[in-house]
């Protein structure tokens, strides 16, 4: 009898491993792969000497939070943080909306120049950005003269610039998803007398919520890490974003000196992203679509 139970639990364990357990194993391995460079950065952040190569995977010279303190004392980190949140928040929201509009048109409508338009959207992203800087100066030099409120050193100007890239990759991403939704859905809605706008806002958007969340997250991360344009754009220290401010910590001879502080900042930079991810997670994995597609 006991052997039977043992056998059964043994079998159950085997089955558990076959169905779920191996998944945990793979996930743990992946997490290890993901985390070990981050542990390196973490140990640099906790290392009181705060230099680069004194850093080992486990801090040897004791642990201190001095680098985090230094980050706030010596730099305008709090300010950078807020600027980044504002810019990345607004930019990701607006760009997801703009690209969702475009993706809807590209996926559901047939018009002349559709495929050419899609392809050009892709190709335009391919031009090296460091070359475009000259033109950006040209455009925003004029804008700053005319409308200083949306010119250099303002978050609004940078937002405008980011909106220029809104249609890029996100449109492609979302169009792919719109394509997977059965046409019958919006067709039947149209039959019931819904306008194209109603189809878009009431039917399509809720259905693609997961991908809106993914695209929003990607845009958020992309904006928070964007450096090249922001560096050109934001020179006054109050207007800087995290990426620009943090890069400044790594300049030239100082790279070594500031690495501890820099590492601390890097870790803190990840916090808003993780929070946004947590916030969006339920949309990403919700079963919303499953229910809707049934109909």
């Amino acid at each position: 009898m006991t052997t039977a139970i043992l056998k059964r639990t043994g079998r159950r364990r085997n089955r558990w491993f076959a169905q779920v357990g191996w998944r945990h194993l793979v996930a743990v391995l992946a997490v290890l792969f993901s985390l070990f460079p981050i542990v390196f950065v973490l140990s640099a952040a906790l290392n009181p000497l705060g230099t680069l190569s004194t850093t080992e995977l486990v801090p040897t010279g004791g642990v201190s939070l001095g680098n985090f303190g230094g980050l706030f004392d010596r730099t305008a980190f709090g300010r950078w943080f807020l600027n980044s949140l504002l810019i990345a928040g607004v930019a990701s929201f607006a760009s997801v909306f703009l690209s969702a509009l475009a993706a809807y048109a590209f996926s559901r409508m047939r018009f002349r120049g559709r495929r050419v338009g899609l392809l050009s959207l892709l190709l335009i992203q391919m031009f090296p950005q460091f070359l475009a800087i000259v033109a950006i100066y040209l455009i925003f030099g004029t804008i700053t003269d005319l409308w200083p409120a949306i010119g250099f050193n303002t978050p609004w100007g940078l937002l405008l610039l980011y909106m220029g890239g809104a249609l890029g990759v996100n449109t492609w991403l979302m169009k792919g998803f719109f394509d997977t939704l059965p046409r019958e859905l919006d067709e039947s809605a149209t039959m019931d007398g819904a306008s194209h706008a109603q189809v878009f806002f009431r039917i399509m958007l809720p259905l693609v919520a997961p991908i809106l969340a993914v695209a929003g997250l990607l845009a958020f991360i992309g904006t928070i890490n964007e450096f090249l344009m922001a560096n050109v754009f934001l020179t006054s220290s109050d207007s800087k974003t995290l990426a620009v401010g943090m890069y400044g910590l790594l300049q030239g001879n100082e790279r070594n000196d500031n690495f501890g502080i820099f590492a601390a900042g890097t870790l803190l930079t990840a916090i808003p992203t993780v929070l946004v991810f947590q916030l969006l997670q339920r949309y990403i994995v919700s079963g919303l679509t499953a229910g809707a597609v049934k109909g």
Partner: protein
Amino acid sequence: MSTPLSGPESVTRTPGREPAGSPPPRPRASRSRDDAPITLTGIAGKVLLLGLTAGIAVWAAFPLVAAEMWTGLALLAASTAGLFYLYLTRRHIPAKYLVPGTLFLIAFQVFPVLYTASTAFTNFGDGHRGSKDEAIVAIGSSSVTQVPGSTEYALSIATRGDPATGPLLFLVTDPATRAVSVGDAKGLRPLDAADVTIATGGKVTAADGYNVLTFGQANARSKEITDLVVPTAGGAVRSSGLSRAYEGKAVRAYDAGCDCIRDTETGQTWTADEQAGAFVAADGERLAQGWKVNVGLKNFTRVLTDENISGPFLGTLVWNFAFAIGSTGGTFLLGMLIALVLHSPRMRGTNFYRVLLVLPYAMPSFAMLLAWRDMFNADFGLINSLFGLNVDWFGQEWTARFAVILVQLWLGYPYMFLVATGALQAIPRELTEATSVDGASPWQSFRAVTLPLLLVALSPLLISSFAFNFNNFNAIYLTTEGAPFPADNPTNGATDLLITYTYRLAFGGQGAQFGFAAAISLFIFAIVAVVSAISFRRTRKQEEVYA
């Protein structure tokens, strides 16, 4: 933001149903019956957004009027009117959805790209950035030298009239004699010592009949001050800031007669060379300050004929493709695999795993690239010490290539993981369940149902990811910088992508050569465009099947 951008529309204009350009199939009369209900939110949203547009347009118009930029104003008026038309008419439905993003795209992406591309036909770059006039001004002002043995004056800026508008004068004090003179474009005249008050440094602080300007007042008229030269016998008194003046002379000046720069002291001339955009002396010596000229196809022929560029081009191109495909394919496979692993209803703690897995993507990538670079250090790096290896990672071709792709994999797979997770959620569970009921193995059902659907959703993304990685400048520049380099060729390394390689060529020499860089970029652009266009054609089939 759930306000419809456009109001009620007719059912007959069902999006996606009609072939491009076909006329509305029904007569007008029947239309009003089919009209979708005009909702209050629809109208309110429309009013609000169009009102905002008009408001912004009005706000933007004032500075344009003030600056008398009529073309700009016309453009603004036209685009505002266009927007009003677009959202008030019932036609052009696709445009209603495309225009908002496209406007930004044109202003901040298309225009910069076209502008940059146009520089490929010029010698635009360091030393050739501005116009000829600007070069002439720069040459003149950098040749101003102090007249030997001349007086160094203390200076105050003054005017007889209003500080903001009155004609400017220099009040200069000779520090040795404390004699004060007043100077304007006509020359210097002495002032009576009794009329002026002089501070210890020699600066005039007050003078009868004159308003001495404060720094703030003076700076408001900065340009007038720097342009004011008071002619003297030996040269001219010029300001050096707002409190000192010196007697100086512009040694070099432009002579329109010979279209050349003439040195008044040595008599040497440099004649304008409109082909090169520089002033060149008879012996071939060039003045540093040049200007931008059109050079036609010279930049393009240089790409083709310079053996420094064309020589290693093929090898670099092959590696570039390998890198882009490796990075995209690797991140896709790994990301999809892990997404599949976590995509199980029985799986617990997926939220927890997901947060940790997304972390690499949440860290600033430039920071992590630098951290990885140090982890690959041969003697001090974490990787060698952790695994007990002794590999000179960035010192050998294949290990360096492996290392950069590994770093890309680490940086990029969370992205693919996220997207694949989203895509898997969107695939109706019924479909996979149906196949497993039919007795298909998990692998078969994956092959038959999940993968094709994933590919529909992700293939556009894979193409754009490929395109991004093809030009992934930072991935190389912040890690190996192209290393290892063969000892006999410091310009082309084993991990160099075309973009890092051209960056080095265009910006490594005597300053930046934007024109040349733009020309190379156009070549790369053409290559990627062809590849992308071909793979894009293949997506048409998928699109037609599932859409």
